[in-house]
Structure formats: C-alpha cells, structure tokens
C-alpha cells in the first residue's frame, strides 16, 4: 500500500462527499460550487490514470465554462429551491 494508493483513496472520498453535497443543498449557488469541485478532483484523477489530453480538456471545459453557464441561469431565475 504505497503512497499513491493512499492519495487515490483520499481523493475518491472527497469526490463522493462533494457529489452528495451538490445534490442535497437547497441553496443553488452552493450546489453549483459542489459540481465544479467534482470536476476539479476528476481532472487530477485523470492525470493519475496517465491521460494528459483528457485532464486538460476536463479542466478547461468542465471547470470554467459549465460553472459560468449555471451561474448566469441562476441569476435570471430563483436562487433558493422552492
């Protein structure tokens, strides 16, 4: 059980906690922050699995562009669920 497996286990636990947080919140802005946290940790996991092209694409598209589209939609509709 070398140090790389310990890093992967810790990152996977952070990933699951961020996904549950994004689904469970009632304030929609905090849910969008949870979604972008899932994208950031996923980009690091892609790099550990020896795929640098996919890590670069996920970091450029999933983190920046998806978050800004969600935030503009929330600004034009309601912020709190129900």
């Amino acid at each position: 059980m070398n140090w790389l497996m310990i890093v992967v286990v810790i990152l996977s636990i952070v990933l699951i906690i961020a996904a549950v947080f994004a689904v469970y919140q009632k304030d929609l802005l905090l849910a969008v922050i949870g979604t972008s946290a899932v994208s950031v940790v996923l980009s690091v996991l892609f790099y550990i699995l020896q795929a640098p092209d996919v890590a670069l694409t996920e970091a450029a598209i999933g983190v920046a562009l998806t978050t800004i589209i969600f935030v503009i939609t929330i600004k034009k509709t309601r912020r709190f669920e129900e």
Partner: protein
Amino acid sequence: MRKVIAILLLFIIGYYSLDVLFKIPFGENATGVGKHYLESTVKETGAVNSVTAIVVSYRGFDTLGEVTVLFLAATGLGAILYDKKAKKRALQNASLIVKTSSKIIYPLIALLGAYVFVHGHLTPGGGFQGGAIIATGVLLMFISYRSFETNHKALSIIESLAGMTFVTIGFAGLIYGTSFLQNILPLGIPGELFSAGIIPLIYVAVGFKVGAELTTLLDNLLKTIK
C-alpha cells in the same frame, strides 16, 4: 413513497453492475485495436501524439460530426434567447485591481491558447482545448469591463471560414488521393513542427472555430441580463 422506490431501484442497478465489473481485471493488456494504433502511428501518420492521430486521422469523420454538434448547440442557444430590443449589458465595472491585472493577463492567455492548438501533434493538447482556453480569456474581459464589445460580424466570418477549410481539406484528399480526409502532404521527420501532413492544418481550423463559437455563446448569454 417515490423516494423509497427510487432508492430500491438504484440499489438493484448498483449491485448487479458492480458484480459484473469486478470480473474485469484491472490493468491487464490493451485491446487489439489499441495495440495496432500504437504500433503504426509514427510510420503511417508521422505524428508523435497517438491520441491526436486517432482523433484526426484514423477517426477523422467523427471529429467532423462533433464540430457540427457544437455548431448546432451554439446556433440553437442564440435562436432560443433571441430578443429584438436587447441593449447593452448592465453589469457593473469591477474594482481597480481586477481591471488593471486583467488587461495584462488577457494577451498571455490568448498566446497560451494558440500555443496549445498549434502544437497539437507533439504535446498533449489540440483544437478543442485551445479554443476553450481562448474563450475563457475573453470571458475574463467580459466580467471586468462593462464596455468591452466583440465584433459579431468578424466572429461569424472567422467561424464560417474555419469550417469551410476543414471540409475543403477533406475534399482535396478525395480529389488527389483515394478517400475523404486522406493524407496528401509529405510526412516529414517526426518531432519537428512542420510534420505529420494535414494534422496541424486541421487542428488550427478546429481551434479557431471552437474559440469563435464559445465566445458567441457566452456573449448571447451575458447580453440577456438586465
């Protein structure tokens, strides 16, 4: 009641999926198709990056379909959110530190995006990554300044010309070679900048097209805030 049925259904799906997936050994040898692509990349296409050679040269028609899907999405969003009396954006100016530093960083981000899509066949990168980086740089300028405008006509002309370049290179392969998107330029030495036939030309066209499309998409979304 709905929650209980949903959790039961998801539990059944998860249990049987994990039961099948744990029979696949993790980290075994690659498939036959993958090994063939890895062994014959440098000889047949001249590119050093194997993923770029698969996306542009071996499966180039799927990349044409993906560029079409992105074009349809940007056009559809512009058509759904069409408003005839849209005026200037009503966002505020940012503070002085953000305004000054974004004016310095914006050309460097554009340079990084151009570097990523020009060297697509040598290092990790390519057209889609470079276009997304350029669109993020323009978004930084949209947020900082209230009066930053882009030229709609110029963006639309760039996008159309880049799309036509892609299809013209494909037809040139049909006329002078044997099939659509065939490699007709000399291959060169692997590792140089001017090598690998038509792969750098196609990726430059895709980079310009994706950058212009994502900038138009963001401009259409930001213009509707009153």
